[in-house]
C-alpha cells in the first residue's frame, strides 16, 4: 500500500523528465488547492474574529454599581457628527485616585488631554476631521489600544475633563468598573447564514477548477497506468498510484495556500468593508477547522482523480472506457429549481411588506435554491442549445461539434460563474433599490440652505449664537424652538412637532410664500402611510414633554388658528414633513413645556464648508453643544458608501470567479488541443489557416460562457423581481456592474483563447504529423 503510494509520488515528480502537461497539471492543481485553502482559512477564522471582538466589547461595558474602595469615573458619551463621517468621543473625569481606567488606556487622560484610536487619529489628521479636531481641542497624549476597540476601524476618542464640569451633565454616568459577560454567541446564525453562501459561491468554481486540473492529461496518465498494469500492478494498486500522484499537487497547494493566507493576512487590516476594518491578528482559524481543511481539500483533489478513473478500467493492454457516459440525472436538478421557483411564486400571494419572517425566509431559500438549480441545469441547457445548432462557418462548426460531443466540463466550469453573476445581480439590485428608497423624500432646499443645526442648553445656545455671529462664511443664524405637540384628548390621536420661529427662520425650512407674525403653516406628509391626519385648523392641541423615564407629561393646551396654510411636503425640507411651523405671535402667549432651542446656520458656499465653519466656531464649547449637519449633506453619502462597498465586493467576487473559470477553460482547451494534435496538424498541413482553428477554440469557449451569462442575467433578474415586489421597491439594475462583468467575461474568453494560441501554433507545426 505504502509502496504503491510512493511509486505514485515518484511518477508524479520523479523520473527526471516531467512532461509539460504533467507539469501544468501539477501547477494548476497546486494553484487551485492553494486558492481554495486561502479562501477557506479566513472563513474558518470568522468564529475567532467574532468572538474576539465580542470579548473585547464585553470587557468595555461600564459597570455603574458603586463598589467599595473604588472612586467613580465620570463618563459622558459624545457623538461627534462630522458630516460624512463621525467620531465616538468619550469624555471622562476621575473623581478620585482609585477610579477605574477604561480598557485600552494606560491612564485616565487629565483635563485637556486626549487619547485617540489609530482610525480616529487618521481621521482627525485629515482635512475632513478639522471641525471635529477643533471641537475636541486638547493635546493628544496617547493611543487607544486594541482592548479599547471592537474593530480596527473604530474611531474612538477619550477626552479628559474635570469631574466638576461633568458631574452636572444630564447624561453623565459614574462608572466603577468595566467588563461584562460576553454574549457567548460567538458566531450567530445570521453571520453563518451570510458567510455560508458567500463561501459556497467562492468555493464552487474553485472546486470545479481543482477537479478539472486534477483530471488534466487523463489520456496520457491512463496510458502510463496501463503500462504499469502490464508489469503486473493490480487494478486496486493503480488507483492508489493515481491517488498518490494527485496528492503531490494537493499537498503543495495546501502549503502554498497556508503561506498565501499568512502573507495576505496583514493586508486584511487595510481592507475597508462597509467602513469596517478588522484586526488582522484576529484572523486565527480554529484548529479543528484547520484540520478539517487540511484533510478535506487534498482529499478532494485525490478523490477527483480517482473519480475521473471510475468509468475507465486500466487494463494491461490499454484503457477500456465503460460505455457512454451515464445519462445526466435530471430529476434532482429540476426539483431544486422547481422548489426554488415555487417558494418564490408563493411569496407573490403575500401582500407587499406583510408577514415579514416567513416571506423573508421563503425569498431567501427560494432564491438560493433557484440559483443552485440554474447552475445545475446549465450543463443540460448548454447541451440542448448546442444540440440544436447547425451550420455556420467551419470554425463555428468545429466548436459546436466539439461541444456536442462533450459540453459537460465546459458547462460545469461556467456554472460557478452563473451562480456568482446571478447572485451579484440579486444582491446589487436589492441594495440599490433599498438605497434608492432611503434617499427618497423631499429634495427641497431654501435658497441659502441650512447647513448646520446647533442644539444645547440655554446658556450654551446663547454663547454659540454669539460665537457664530461673527464667523466668516456664515450669513445668518436663525433660532427656532422645537417642541412636541399632540392632538388634545386621551393621547391616542396625532402626535407631532412644532417649530416655532420668526418668518425668516421658518422660511429656511419651507416655501412659505407671504408670512407675517401670527401665521401657522402645516407641512403635508410625504407618505400618507402614518394614518393619522394632521390637525385641522381650529383644532385643540396640547404640548407635552418627556420625563427622564420616557413618560409623557401633559403641558399647556393651545388652539390652532382658524387659518392654517398648507405647504406641500415637496416644498419643505425633508426633516419638517408632517410638522407645524408656527410664528411666535400665533401662540398667543402659550409656552411649550418641553422646548429645545435650535440654531439654524446658513451661509454662503457649499453646505459642507458652512458646516465646517460652524463646527470650528463653536469649538470652544466642545461637548456642551451638539452640532449636526443638515440631513441632505450626510445620509445619502453614507448609503452610497455601503452601495459602493457592496458593488466592489460583488465585482471582486465576480471577477475572481470569472478568472478561475477562464483558467479552467484554458486548461480544457489545452487538454483538447493536445488530444487533437494529429488532426490539427493534418488540417494545418492541408492548408487550413491557423485563424480558423483559433476561431474554433474561441467559439468553443465563448458559447458556454455566453449561455451562462445570459442565463445568469435572466435568472438574476428573475429571482430579484419577487423580492422587489414584496419589498415594494422598484427595479434599478446596475447596468455598469453587469456591463463590467459581461465585458470581463468577453475578455476572459479572449484571454483563455489567446493563451492557447502558442500551443496551437506549436501543434500545427510539423511535430503533430510525425508518427510516434
Amino acid at each position, binding site marked *: 500500500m505504502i509502496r504503491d503510494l510512493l511509486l505514485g509520488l515518484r511518477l508524479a515528480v520523479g523520473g527526471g523528465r516531467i512532461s509539460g502537461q504533467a507539469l501544468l497539471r501539477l501547477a494548476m492543481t497546486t494553484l487551485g488547492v492553494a486558492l481554495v485553502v486561502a479562501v477557506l482559512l479566513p472563513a474558518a477564522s470568522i468564529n475567532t474574529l467574532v468572538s474576539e471582538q465580542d470579548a473585547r466589547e464585553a470587557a468595555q461595558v461600564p459597570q455603574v454599581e458603586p463598589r467599595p474602595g473604588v472612586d467613580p469615573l465620570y463618563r459622558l458619551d459624545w457623538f461627534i457628527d462630522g458630516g460624512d463621517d463621525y467620531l465616538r468621543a468619550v469624555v471622562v473625569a476621575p473623581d478620585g485616585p482609585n477610579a477605574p481606567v477604561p480598557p485600552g488606556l494606560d491612564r485616565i487622560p487629565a483635563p485637556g488631554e486626549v487619547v485617540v484610536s489609530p482610525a480616529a487619529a487618521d481621521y482627525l489628521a485629515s482635512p475632513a476631521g478639522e471641525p471635529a479636531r477643533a471641537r475636541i481641542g486638547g493635546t493628544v497624549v496617547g493611543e487607544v489600544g486594541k482592548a479599547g476597540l471592537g474593530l480596527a476601524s473604530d474611531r474612538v476618542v477619550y477626552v479628559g475633563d474635570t469631574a466638576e464640569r461633568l458631574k452636572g451633565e444630564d447624561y453623565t454616568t459614574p462608572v466603577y468598573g468595566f467588563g461584562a459577560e460576553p454574549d457567548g454567541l460567538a458566531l450567530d446564525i445570521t453571520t453563518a447564514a451570510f458567510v455560508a453562501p458567500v463561501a459556497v459561491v467562492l468555493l464552487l468554481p474553485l472546486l470545479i477548477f481543482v477537479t478539472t486540473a486534477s483530471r488534466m492529461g487523463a489520456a496520457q496518465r491512463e496510458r502510463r497506468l496501463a503500462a504499469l498494469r502490464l508489469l503486473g500492478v493490480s487494478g486496486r494498486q493503480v488507483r492508489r498510484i493515481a491517488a498518490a500522484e494527485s496528492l503531490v499537487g494537493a499537498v503543495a497547494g495546501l502549503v502554498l495556500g497556508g503561506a498565501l493566507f499568512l502573507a495576505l493576512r496583514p493586508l486584511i487590516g487595510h481592507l475597508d468593508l462597509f467602513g469596517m476594518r478588522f484586526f488582522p491578528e484576529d484572523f486565527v482559524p480554529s484548529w479543528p477547522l484547520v484540520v478539517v481543511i487540511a484533510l478535506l481539500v487534498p482529499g478532494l483533489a485525490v478523490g477527483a482523480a480517482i473519480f475521473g478513473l471510475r468509468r475507465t478500467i486500466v487494463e494491461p493492454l490499454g484503457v477500456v472506457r465503460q460505455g457512454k457516459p451515464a445519462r445526466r440525472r435530471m430529476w434532482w436538478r429540476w426539483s431544486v429549481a422547481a422548489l426554488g421557483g415555487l417558494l418564490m411564486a408563493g411569496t407573490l400571494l403575500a401582500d407587499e411588506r406583510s408577514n415579514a419572517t416567513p416571506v423573508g425566509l421563503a425569498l431567501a431559500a427560494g432564491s438560493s435554491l433557484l440559483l443552485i438549480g440554474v447552475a445545475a441545469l446549465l450543463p443540460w441547457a448548454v447541451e440542448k442549445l448546442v444540440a440544436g445548432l447547425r451550420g455556420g462557418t*467551419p470554425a463555428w462548426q468545429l466548436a459546436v461539434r466539439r461541444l456536442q460531443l462533450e459540453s459537460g466540463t465546459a458547462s460545469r466550469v461556467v456554472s460557478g460563474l452563473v451562480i456568482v453573476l446571478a447572485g451579484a445581480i440579486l444582491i446589487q439590485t436589492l441594495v440599490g433599490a433599498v438605497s434608492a428608497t432611503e434617499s427618497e423624500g423631499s429634495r427641497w432646499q431654501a435658497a441659502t440652505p441650512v447647513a448646520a443645526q446647533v442644539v444645547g442648553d440655554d446658556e450654551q445656545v446663547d454663547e454659540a449664537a454669539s460665537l457664530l455671529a461673527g464667523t466668516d462664511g456664515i450669513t445668518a443664524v436663525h433660532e427656532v424652538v422645537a417642541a412636541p405637540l399632540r392632538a388634545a384628548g386621551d393621547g391616542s390621536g396625532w402626535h407631532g412637532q412644532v417649530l416655532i420661529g420668526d418668518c425668516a427662520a421658518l422660511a429656511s425650512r419651507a416655501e412659505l410664500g407671504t408670512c407675517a407674525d401670527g401665521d401657522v403653516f402645516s407641512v403635508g406628509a410625504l407618505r400618507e402611510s402614518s394614518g393619522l391626519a394632521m390637525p385641522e385648523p381650529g383644532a385643540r392641541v396640547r404640548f407635552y414633554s418627556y420625563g427622564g423615564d420616557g413618560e409623557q407629561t401633559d403641558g399647556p393646551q393651545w388652539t390652532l388658528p382658524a387659518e392654517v396654510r398648507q405647504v406641500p411636503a415637496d416644498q419643505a425640507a425633508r426633516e419638517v414633513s408632517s410638522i407645524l411651523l408656527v410664528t411666535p405671535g400665533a401662540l398667543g402667549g402659550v409656552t411649550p413645556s418641553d422646548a429645545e432651542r435650535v440654531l439654524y446656520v446658513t451661509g454662503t458656499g457649499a453646505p459642507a464648508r458652512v458646516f465646517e465653519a460652524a463646527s470650528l466656531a463653536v469649538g470652544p464649547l466642545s461637548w456642551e453643544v451638539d452640532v449636526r449637519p443638515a440631513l441632505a449633506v450626510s445620509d445619502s453619502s453614507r448609503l452610497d458608501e455601503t452601495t459602493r462597498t457592496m458593488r466592489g465586493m460583488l465585482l471582486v467576487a465576480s471577477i475572481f470567479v470569472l478568472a478561475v473559470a477562464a483558467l479552467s477553460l484554458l486548461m480544457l482547451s489545452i487538454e483538447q488541443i493536445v488530444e487533437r494534435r494529429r*488532426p490539427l496538424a493534418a488540417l494545418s498541413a*492541408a*492548408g487550413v489557416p491557423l485563424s480558423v482553428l483559433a476561431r474554433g477554440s474561441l467559439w468553443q469557449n465563448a458559447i458556454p460562457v455566453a449561455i451562462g451569462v445570459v442565463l445568469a442575467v435572466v435568472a438574476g433578474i428573475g429571482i430579484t423581481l419577487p423580492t422587489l415586489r414584496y419589498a415594494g421597491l422598484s427595479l434599478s439594475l446596475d447596468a455598469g456592474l453587469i456591463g463590467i462583468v459581461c465585458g470581463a467575461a468577453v475578455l476572459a474568453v479572449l484571454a483563455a483563447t489567446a493563451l492557447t494560441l502558442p500551443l496551437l501554433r506549436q501543434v500545427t507545426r510539423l511535430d503533430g*504529423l510525425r508518427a510516434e
Partner: protein
Amino acid sequence: MTEPLLAGRDLHKSFGPTEALRGADVAVRAGEVLAVMGPSGSGKSTLLHCLAGIVRPDSGSIRYQGRDLVEMSDGERSALRRTDFGFVFQFGQLVPELTCLENVALPLRLGGAKRKPAEARARQWLERLEVGDLGDRRPGDVSGGQGQRVAVARALVSDPKVVFADEPTGALDSLNGEKVMRLLTDAARGAGAAVVLVTHEPRVAAHSDREIVVRDGRVKDLELAA
C-alpha cells in the same frame, strides 16, 4: 519530355544536427502516381513535406506551375495547399468531433462553398470510395480502413492537382491496405490528380506508375537524370 507539374531541385533540409535531405531532386508529372521509397528515416516524409510546401527547405527550389514554393510566404503556401493539394496521412487526420461527411466537406467549406452543396459533393466522394453509408458517423466509430477511405475522399474532394500520401496504408492490414490503395489510385487517376505516395512497402509502391528511392536524404530520380 513535357515540363513536370511539380519539381524539386537540390533540396536540403536539416533538423538541428540531423540532415534529413541533402540534395534531393524530384519531378512529378501531371496525373502520374509516383512512389517515394526508401528505408525508414531516409527522409521520405521530409521530402514530401517540402514538396507540399508544409516545410520550407533550407536550400533548393520547388517549382509548381511556374512558381517557386520556396519563395512564397506562409500564407500563400497555406492557400496553395488548400486549393491545389490534397493530403492523406498514416492515421488520425480526421477531426474526431465532426462526422465523416463534415470532415470530407471541410476543405470545400474552407474554400467558401455553402454547406449544402459542399456536403452533396462530399457524399458523392464517400460513395465513390465505397463508404457512402458512413456519412453520419464520427471517425471514432469507424474502422481504420474506412477512416482512411474517408481521408482519401477528403483529400480528393477539392479537385487537387497533387495528392500527397504519407504511408497511407501504414496502419492497415494487407487486405484493407490493398483496398485503400486501389481506391486511392483509381480515384486519383479518374480525377487526373498526380499522387506522391510515400511508402516503404513494395506492394504498395506497385500501385504507382513510377518510383524514386530516397537514401540518406538523397534521391535517385531516373527521369530527372535522363
